[in-house]
């Protein structure tokens, strides 16, 4: 464990931490990976943390969250815990393969890395580095862009553990993989999970990621996920975020799609302390399809930011994007969606929409859908709406006997439903739909069940001895 004093900036701390812990950070790394990490830390040194003078971070002031006295746990050995004693799936009919990241490290019941009969590998990134170095070598940092911002470079430099998923060619993984990200400590932690998901040609998989925090301590999670969806492969990625008010979460996901690859992404933010989701998609093939859906519900002083970037590099691909938000109290949200259509990307269809409901005068949304088009034979549209609940609809419902709260609830749910009903697995759609309505009724706390269910009533009973880490 590294104890760092408060009087130097987090940037300097991180640089020093890197210098001091190279042996740990480079463990099982090949020469080229070490080069990547050295270059990444140099990049981070050059650009530092993003700040509000940068256009992409103009409305996302991260600086206050960099000031806490965070602990960095770089030394680790994988620990063996009975995951089922901690979690129990609440979704009936949803048979999932569960993996858990606890404070950014992989925890497991029997083995850190599972190879299914069909050749699919699921487990710890750190362990995969040891057992499948050739796969990691081939893909690590090939899709992430370290110059996107300092957080990405920093994550690359410190990449140690996270979730590793590899689906070989021609495999349909029937069982959904559930990835539980939990932050739970009594101390303030800074964690940097690094995930790598590879879906080879003609294969298909569904992932359900759940970002969850169980304690009210300050925490900072800087997560980077790299995803390759190879030719004719398919990935459904559902992300559920239910975070405590003192947690800061940066989720940066890079997706590379080859010919005819298909991505469906649903991001459901139910509670956020401070959340920023960056989704960076390269449609680097012909006939690709990317469907990005999101819903964010925020109240009190919660902040949620969704930045998406869809890069159409080659012809005949479709992208479709719909993000919707309901903001109450003094909540703030940012949506920035950029669609780039490169010169070669003829016959592109790109559709983008962001719709918001503000329930109070003090709730804020900054929305910026934008298109940059260099091809001349394309169909693109974008738009954003900000409004209140429809008064006509409210009156219609009330004139049939529905109370004001009930009518409001029904309309808010209806607004969210357009996104919910895009979730491809029915059991999950129903469960998440219920979570959303519970959230809208104000009955969903951050300590409530995620898609997974926490058995322990009191978060402090979550019994993992951190000294083992």
């Amino acid at each position, binding site marked *: 464990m590294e104890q760092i004093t408060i009087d130097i900036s987090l940037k300097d701390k991180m640089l020093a931490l890197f210098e001091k812990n190279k042996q740990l950070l480079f463990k099982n790394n090949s020469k080229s990976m070490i080069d990547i990490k050295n270059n990444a830390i140099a990049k981070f040194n050059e650009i530092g943390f993003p700040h509000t003078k940068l256009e992409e971070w103009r409305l996302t002031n991260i600086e206050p969250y960099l000031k806490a006295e965070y602990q960095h746990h770089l030394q680790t050995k994988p620990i063996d815990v009975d995951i089922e004693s901690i979690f129990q799936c609440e979704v009936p009919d949803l048979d999932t393969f569960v993996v858990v990241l606890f404070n950014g490290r992989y925890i497991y019941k029997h083995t850190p890395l599972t190879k299914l009969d069909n050749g699919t590998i699921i487990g710890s990134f750190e362990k995969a580095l040891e057992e499948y170095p050739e796969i990691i070598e081939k893909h690590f940092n090939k899709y992430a862009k370290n110059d996107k911002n300092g957080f990405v470079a920093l994550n690359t430099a410190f990449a140690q553990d996270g979730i590793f998923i590899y689906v070989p060619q021609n495999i349909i993984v029937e069982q959904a993989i559930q990835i539980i990200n939990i932050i739970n400590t009594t101390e303030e932690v800074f964690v940097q999970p690094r995930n790598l998901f590879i879906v080879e040609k003609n294969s298909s998989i569904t992932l359900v990621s759940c970002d969850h925090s169980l304690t009210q301590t300050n925490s900072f999670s800087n997560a980077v996920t790299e995803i390759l969806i190879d030719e004719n492969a398919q990935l459904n990625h559902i992300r559920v975020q239910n975070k405590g008010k003192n947690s800061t979460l940066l989720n940066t996901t890079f997706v590379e799609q080859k010919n005819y690859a298909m991505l469906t992404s649903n991001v459901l933010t139910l509670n956020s302390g401070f959340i920023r989701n960056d989704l960076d998609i390269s449609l680097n093939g012909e006939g690709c399809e990317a469907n990005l859906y999101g819903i964010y519900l925020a109240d009190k002083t919660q902040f949620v930011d969704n930045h998406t970037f869809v890069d159409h590099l080659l012809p005949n691909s479709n992208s479709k994007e719909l993000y919707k938000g309901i903001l109450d109290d003094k909540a703030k949200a940012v949506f920035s969606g950029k669609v780039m259509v490169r010169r070669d990307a003829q016959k592109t269809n790109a559709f983008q929409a962001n719709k918001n409901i503000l329930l109070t005068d003090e709730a804020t949304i900054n929305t910026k859908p934008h298109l940059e088009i260099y091809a001349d034979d394309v169909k693109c549209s974008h738009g954003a709406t900000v409004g209140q609940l*429809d*008064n*006509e*609809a409210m*009156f*219609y*419902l*009330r*004139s*049939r*006997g*529905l*109370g*004001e709260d*009930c*009518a409001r609830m*029904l*309309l808010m*749910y*209806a*607004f*969210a*439903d*357009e996104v919910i009903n895009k979730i491809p697995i029915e059991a999950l759609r129903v469960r998440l739909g219920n979570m959303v309505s519970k959230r809208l009724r104000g009955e969903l706390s951050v300590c409530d069940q995620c898609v997974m269910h926490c058995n322990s009533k009191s978060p402090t009973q979550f019994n993992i001895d951190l000294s083992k880490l």
Partner: protein
Amino acid sequence: MLQIKHLRVSINQKEILKDFNLEVKAGEVHAIMGPNGTGKSTLASVIAGRDIFEVTEGEILYKGKNLLDLPPETRAREGIFLGFQYPVEIPGVSMANFMKTAVNEIRKYKGLEPIGGADFLKLMEEKKKLVEIQSKLNNRSVNEGFSGGEKKKNEIFQMAMLNPTLSILDETDSGLDIDALRIVANGVNKLRTKDNATVVITHYQRLLDYIVPDFVHVMYDGKIVKSGDKHLAIELEEKGYDWIKQELEANASI
């Protein structure tokens, strides 16, 4: 059942209803006719509780209660139903969910247990037949993608589901072809009892061939200027509203 006394209503400082009076008793059907812009729809909205209007004078008593004190949902639970001239589309809210919620809110108000799932579906099917709705209604969003005729049938369907005591039908006939008009009117007639009452707002006498009114009122410039029985509607159809206007001007000049 309903007494409207000296009602004055404005919107944005513009007075729409000017000393409006009406009494409706149980078992009666009243028709309110009149040219565009005379305040017919405003009257319907004010009875149902739309809050964009300002009542500056007068009162509305319903079963002896002061209606103006009650929010729209309480009026609905007390048995008032407004058939909208322009039914609102609500994407994402299914008809089944909407109706089940409405029925149960009203039952709760009356101190009754919520209706069971099977009973509810049976009720839906039964009432659909009343207005000859063939399509699957349950999972469709409220009025979304409905044709003009379907929307109006849907209003009468909801009326049948909620079983109101006083129904105000605001131009339920507008935009209907002759078959749909017959279906809607049949629906209304089948729901008539000696204990409930209906106020039909319309431009045209045509609807009144099907829904035979006990009283016909002509509204002009925010109040009722002439009342009579069903023959008044026929006379109006023949002579047009100008006849009323001329009569009013003649009276004024005396």
